[in-house]
């Protein structure tokens, strides 16, 4: 039942993603990507990850706001067509090879609905589920993992978020180079 529902949602996402990439109007493309994000959030809710679903929803809203900030003030001159990287056909052929090669790996995974932790009894997750409450005192095992067992991940994640936002401030600063005295430093003239 839930498999069919998630498959349908995934097909919807694939369609929306294709629309987002192929739409010439940038604003519509951003809205389509918003649809993909919201459906991802619904999928999280369906497979027993409510915390992630709410986080995804909040981040999705922020994403849309940031992306609209990038597109709305600028003229929406349509930029059609694709990049001539090696030529479009060669690139798509390479992507297809990658896809077919990867497909074999994806078919070897355990069946959907039977996670790998049931196959490996001494996997880390089983320990978290069994001893998590006893050892950390948190009823939510997810909280026990991100704040205690794997707290370094959270620390590093905050560093990355800080680097991203602080970097965005640095990139957006008004005057970035000192006034040059004699000649243009970066354009060597003859």
């Amino acid at each position, binding site marked *: 039942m839930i498999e069919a529902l998630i498959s349908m949602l995934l097909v919807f996402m694939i369609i929306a993603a294709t629309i987002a990439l192929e739409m010439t109007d940038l604003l519509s493309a951003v809205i389509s990507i918003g649809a993909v994000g919201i459906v991802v959030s619904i999928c999280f809710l369906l497979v027993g990850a409510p915390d992630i679903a709410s986080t995804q929803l909040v981040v999705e809203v922020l994403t849309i706001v940031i992306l609209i900030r990038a597109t709305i003030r600028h003229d929406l001159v349509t930029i059609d067509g694709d990049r001539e990287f090696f030529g479009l056909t060669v690139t798509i052929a390479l992507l297809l090879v990658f896809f077919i090669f990867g497909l074999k790996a994806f078919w070897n995974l355990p069946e959907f609905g039977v996670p790998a932790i049931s196959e490996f009894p001494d*996997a880390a997750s089983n320990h978290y589920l069994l001893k998590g409450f006893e050892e950390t005192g948190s009823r939510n095992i997810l909280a026990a993992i991100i704040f205690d067992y794997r707290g370094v991940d959270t620390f590093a994640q905050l560093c990355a978020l800080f680097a991203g936002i602080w970097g965005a401030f640095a990139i957006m600063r008004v005057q970035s180079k000192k006034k040059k005295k004699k000649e243009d430093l970066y354009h060597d003239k003859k």
Partner: protein
Amino acid sequence: MDNLSLFISIPAAVAFFIPIASHRFKWFPDVSASVTTFILLLLSLMTLNHETVYRMGNWPASYGIVFVLDGFSCMMLIIVNLICFLAALFSVDYIEKFYTSKLRYYSLLLLVVTGMNGTILTGDIFNLFIFLEVALIASYTLVGFGCSSRNLEASFKYLAINLLASYFILLAIALLYGKFASLNMAVLSQLMKVNPVDNIMVFAFVLLFVGFGIKAAMVPFHGWVADAYTSAPAPVSAILAGGIIKALGIYVLMRFVYNIFGMNYLISTIFIYAGAMSIVVGVLMALGQWNFKRLLAYHSISQMGYIVLAFGIGTPLAILGGIFHILNHSLFKPLLFLNAGSVEYETGKRNLNNMGSLSKKMPVTAVSSLIASFSISGIPPFSGFWSKFLIIVAAIQADKPVFALWAVIGSILTLASFSKIQRYVFFGKGKYFKDEVISEVKEVPYLMRVSMIVLAIFCSFAGFLLLGGLNGIFGPAVNALAGGTDLYITRILGR
């Protein structure tokens, strides 16, 4: 020195503190960055000849996160922190002259240090991915720090290619997790030995090879290198060449190959061919360049080829050569980038044709650059000779004389292009050189001189570190890789 968490907590804490304190104290960013990186350098020197496993939060390895210190990671820690310290010293005057917003610069620089130290030490693949992202996100901004159109273009190119690589790596981690339900490197290694090779492991390895190959600037994936190195401020180019492509690229790749997946004939062949290609393609692209920094960037690709070739051969002698070449490349390439930065600091030029006769006006820069050039092209008493010599001998011993010859050819071409730099910049004159350019030129400020002199001294005398050979100072590092998966599993899991 057993508390390995200091390597990530000190730089991150200072990085967060710089924006707060700098509004009141103008001197704070300069001083704090240099002092912090110096403390980290001392701490990393104290880890020499130690081997320990530090449990974060005291959770055991199978379900917590561990930081692993063995010979190889200790070597990388010393290299990375040395380069970051010297680059921070060099930045004091350089950034002051060209760029605004010093506090953001130093804050991001320290985050790069955090990310690299974390990547080197961690023993958990997902944790590794996040630390890698910390270092990369901070470096994306540093590459585009000037915000001119070229800087931004290079920064976006660098960001796009490396983010693609990061998502490949994340997909590989997800696949491995889906198969083995574990993130710890030692546990994964153990499970991979027990289970037969299947499509998931092959595809995950391909994804990891492409992802880290992009970060290590191997030849099919080297597109971002030249632009990013050319556009970044000189000390950041030094960190990119001496730290980021080593710590995030080659180091992690070798950990995966030797300690997790296990080396075999096929992987070894792939590495040997990739390395051989990198050596020649990099040097050929460099020969025609007239931009000082772009020339150095292409040489980076070529020198990384030697390292990949050495690790591909995989005998203990070759691994010794590879590790020593990592050290050497982290000494002479940052030195050359700092030289380029000094020349730019004084003359404002980057094109070789516009410079000339600087040896009289800038003796320290000229002499240190001469030493670095000798070292990179493998002239005997300097450090670069010994590592190339080791790699060539190892190639002959492993019955691969073609690749030994190939490495010699690469070395000769390197010499050719560096004699070009010496001729046009320091001892001769460029085509469009005008005398008024150098009329006001003088030697660079003291701090910049200090970092160049230190690197030049290391370049001259690093050959002595090889004394003792496989039992010398590099012994534990070679053992850590040559011991393969078994040694790594025993060290972390204790069984």
